[in-house]
Structure formats: C-alpha cells, structure tokens
C-alpha cells in the first residue's frame, strides 16, 4: 500500500477516534463524581446534533449560537439523567442498578427523539470550511474532519488543564476521590456533581455538532456511540479523562487500521478483542489508576 494511502487512512482513523474520544471525555466527567457511567451518553450526543439541525437548518441560527443553546438544553438533559437515573436509584440501593437505569433512560430519550425528529438520518451542513476536500500533497481531507481533530484535541487538553490547575478542577477531583471527606473540607459536592453533569452534557453537544456534518445527525446512532465511547474510556483508563480521549484516538486508529490492513469483516472482533486484551494486561486502562 502506498504511503499516501496509509497517511490518508491514519487521518481517517484520527477523525473517527476524535469523536470516540470526545464521547469518552463526556463519560469521564460524570464518572469523576460518583464512579457511575451514563450508558445513555450517546443519546445526549444525538440530542445535541438534532437540536443543532433544527436550529441551524430549520431556523437559520448561526452555528455558534446554536451550539451554546443546544449545549444548555443538553446540559439540562444530563442533569435529568443525574436526577432520574443515578441519584434516585443509587442512594436507595447502593448496587449496580444505575447500569440499567441509565441505559433505560437512554432508550426513553431515544424514543422521544424519534417521535420529535423522526427516524431518518438528517443532513447537517459542514460549518468548518467548504464542502470541497482540501489537498495536502496526495492526501485529501475535508476541512470539517481536520477541524474535528483540532477542536477535540484542544478541548481535551483544556479540560485536563482545568482539572489539574484550577480550584474548581481540584474540587472535582477531590469529590471523585472521597465525596464525604471533600464535603467535610468545605467543598459543596452537590454543586460539583451538578456542574459535572452539565459539563458532560455540553461536551456531548459539542461532539454532536462536530460529528453530524460528517456522519449525518442520526436518531439511531446513539447506542453505537455509547458503546464505542465506553470502550475508548475503558482502554484509556476510567479515572483519567485525557486517558479516555487518547483511548478514543487509539480505538479510531485501530478500527480503520484493522479494516484497511486486515479485513473489514474482522474489524469488530479486533476492536473488542483489544478491549479484552487491555482488561487482561492492564485492567485500569493505559492511563487509569486502580481503586
């Protein structure tokens, strides 16, 4: 295979992986509060992209304004997840019921979205650059795809910096480590939890806006995004947002790489096989810490 083709595919894998990585990042903001995963997270991404389509295509709203409005709405939806599927269940039972409740709420949201937006994928106009691919040497790429990679990397790095360097970020990390102690130290853990869910919703929306122009806004696409984002998070490390993001990039490259150089038919076997392998060799993921 020519080197141009390899670079072309590498780029393709990064664009796909950046999307998985952003989903993983939005997972990990929620995970950081109560060690809970929202298995309906992909539906929040879909909600973000469908709201975007309605505003940008239907209402001719500028993309940036639509993004802010959609992020606010999806943040509220994420708070609803916390209220309905996590808090109510977890404090009563202290068991794994949240797995089903978050997954179930995701299905409810999906059905509701299908009632509102229908079941067909919808076109979301490309808002980064033009429809025409740009030529870099013998490699071609859509400006939108290049934009996805750059924006995703910037967001992931900024998010990690926020977690490490700001007081708020430290409060989030303290809450994740030990909620009761954090509370005793004067951290308003409730605010931290609400803030984290809202942020997770906003990240999901950004992901929805970035991915929809390439993959369409697909009302049926939520489950797949949830699963792939989760795999990315586990490979990267549950407690590490930047790890989850890098896990996403790795997963995207692995998918495209195995489809291109081994076989499309074995792609999923290889992807899920990699997940099992990581779990065996490094159960905490590449960047995560156990416990």
């Amino acid at each position, binding site marked *: *295979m020519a080197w141009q083709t390899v670079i072309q595919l590498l780029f393709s894998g990064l664009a796909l992986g950046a999307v998985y990585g952003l989903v993983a990042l939005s997972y990990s903001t929620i995970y950081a509060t109560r060690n809970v995963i929202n298995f309906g997270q992909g539906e929040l991404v879909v909600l973000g992209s469908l709201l975007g389509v309605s505003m940008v295509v239907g209402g001719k709203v500028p993309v940036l304004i639509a993004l802010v409005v959609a992020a606010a709405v999806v943040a509220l939806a994420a708070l609803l997840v916390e209220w309905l599927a996590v808090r109510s269940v977890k404090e009563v039972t202290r068991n794994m019921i949240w797995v089903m409740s978050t997954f179930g709420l995701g299905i409810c949201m999906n059905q509701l979205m299908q009632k509102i937006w229908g*079941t067909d994928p919808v*076109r979301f106009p490309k808002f980064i650059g033009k429809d025409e691919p740009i030529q870099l040497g013998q490699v*071609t790429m859509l400006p939108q795809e290049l934009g996805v990679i750059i924006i995703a990397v910037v967001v992931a790095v900024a998010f990690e910096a926020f977690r490490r360097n700001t007081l708020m970020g430290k409060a989030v990390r303290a809450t994740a480590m030990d909620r009761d102690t954090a509370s005793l130290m004067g951290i308003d853990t409730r605010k931290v939890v609400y803030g984290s869910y809202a942020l997770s919703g906003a990240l999901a929306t950004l992901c929805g806006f970035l991915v929809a122009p390439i993959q*369409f806004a697909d009302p*049926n*696409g939520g489950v*797949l995004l949830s699963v792939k984002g989760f795999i990315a998070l586990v490979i990267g490390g549950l407690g590490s947002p930047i790890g989850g993001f890098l896990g996403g990039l790795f997963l995207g490259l692995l998918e495209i790489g195995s489809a291109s150089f081994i076989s499309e038919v074995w792609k999923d076997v290889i992807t899920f096989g990699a997940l099992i392998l990581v779990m065996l060799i490094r159960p905490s993921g590449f960047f995560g810490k156990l416990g």
Partner: protein
Amino acid sequence: MKHSLPILAALAFSALQAQAQDTIKVGMNGALSGPAAVLGRDALAGLELAIDEINAAGGIKGKKVELIAKDDEAKPPLALKWVQQMVNSDKIVAYFPSTNTTPSLTSLQVTVPAGVPHIIAGTTSDVVCPPGGAPKPCDSNVVRLSILNSWQAAGIAKFAKEKLKVQKVAIMYDSTEYGQDGEHLLEAELKKAGIPIVYKGTFDLGEKAFKPHLTKIKAAGADAILTWTLDFVVAKIAIEKKELGMNEVRMVGSSAITGMALRALGGDAVEGVYMADGMPAAVTSGDDSVKRLLERYRAKTKADPKAGIPYWTTTYYDAMHLLAKSIEKAGTDRAALTKALASAGTWKGTGVTYSLAPEKRNAREAGSAIHIVQVKGGQLVDAR
C-alpha cells in the same frame, strides 16, 4: 415515526366507525420506525392514497375500506405477531407484507395456511415468489407487483457494460439478507457480462467509515462501484468517495436508493449516481397518471419538491386499486378473491403496465420492468 399520531388518530377514528358500519379490512405490515422506516412509510403512503380515493368514491360495494397498518420495524418476530393478529382477530380480507425481505417471508407462515390473499408490492427478493416457479412455485395465495432483485442485477450489469463501458467493478453490499442477495445476483450477472469484479466489500448498516473500502477500490482500479444497500449508506459512500477525489469512478445502486433520502443526505456528492428503478424517472416521464399521484404524494408526505414518487409508493397504490377491483368482482371470500387477483389479466397502473395470470404471479416482466435513472440537479432523470 413522524406520522404515528395522525395514524393512531386515524386508526382510532376508523375503529369507532367500524363499530357503526361494516368495513372491508385490509392489513399491512411495514417498517414504520427504525433504519428502514423510509421504505415502510412510503409504502403506507401509497396504500393510504389509494384508500382515500376508493372511500371518497363511495367505497367498494358501499363498504368503506379500513386499513390496519402495523409497524414491524423490519423485524420478523414483530411481523409474525402483527400478521397473526390481523388474520385471526381483525379478520382482514387481504394482506400487504413488509417491503423488507425477512419479515415479508415470515408472514407467509400465517397467510398461506389461512389462505389470505398476500399481495407483494414492495419486497424485491427473488426468494419470495420466485419468477418462473423455480426452485418452488409462488405460494397459491401470493401475487406480486414489485420488481425483482434478479431483474435489477441483470439491468445494472447490462447498463454497466453497454452504456458505461466499465472494465472493472467493485461491489459494496450490506450484511443484511437484502445486501447479500444482491451481491450474489450481481456477481452472477457480471460474470455473464464478462466484467471482472476487482473488489467486494461488506459492512453493517451502522458503518461509520468507508475509506478502508474506498482506498482499496481505488488501488484495484475499479471504474464503477455497484452498491446493494440503503440510501443513507450510499450517501455516505458517495461523500467519502468524493473526498478521496475518486470522481471518475461511477456509482450504480439498487432500487432501494430511489427515495429522496439519498439526495437529501448526499447533496453534491451523489450527483451522477445511477440506480435501477421500477419505472421511468417519474417527473420527466410525462405520464399524467404519475404526475397527478406525485402531487398528492407530495401534499400528503410534505415531501421535498425535488422528490420524485418512490416506485414502491406507486406499486402499493396500484396494488390497493387492484385489490378493490378484485373485491368488486369476487367479493371478500378469501379463495374467490385470491382467484380473482391472480386472474386480473393486463391493466395499466401508474406509469407501468401489469399483467397477472394464474400461472404468472409476478405482474411485471423481466426485460421491460427495469429502468436505469440518474441523479441530476438533485432530481432523478432517465439515464442515457
């Protein structure tokens, strides 16, 4: 399920009416939600357009037609459940199966033993009611108005050889029954036409990235990609193909992509894409019956003004009129009605001519049924 509320309301209303007066009940299964919903909804629109006309003209022998339409989500177990309910509880006089192959096949388990007339207006699979009666003849209660996959495959191969003059082709098909059926048929027809297949790629309907396939197709030097999958997938393939600068590689698809979704999603990238259709490109054919129906279809579905009428909307529409005509003649007794349907003879439908006889249950002809159309300026036109 954009239309579910009006449908439910209509059903509830018609249920109330049914108590007040005797109606003629017909049943329909179709994917009204999920990835194949675009097929099911356009099929439903065809039936409803015909039933509106029939009821507005006073019904059949003074009785109104009542449609019982169920969403099988293209899932065989659901199709089975609904058809059992329709046949056993609702006592439908005739049944229209799903456009999708497997749920359509599954429902035969119920309609054949019960002898309920089974009118195929969407399913194109050769496995259901095979032409020429091989390997087994059509079930006795079945007639079909839709075109067949084998005819499309032959039409596509002929077009690729004679008009496009392709030297090497790639086949892209999804992993469903539909995609696999198409792949087998295309392979056989291309072999007959002497066109080598340099690449075959398969994928799930949820596939997100086609560049691994496309870069291999580029490397193999194929000058056409033949697809056998649904519209939103072909749109994605076309977009990525354009991105890779493979503009000289032509695309030819099966009839599943003749709806508006391909053009709505694919935009510029699907310009020039060819596809097999069951009728000439509706808007440009100049046929008044198609134009009238097209206007009502657009009004009913609030379709894009550029949308042609999907051919399966017309087959369901024509099938309902055939049913009405046959009930006029033979009444609602299942055996008599089946006989009347299969003896309908030759008649003109929407833009096409059908012909049914007891020994010929497929109403279209292999040679004349397939038309190749092309996307031009966002519309479908006849390919030259």
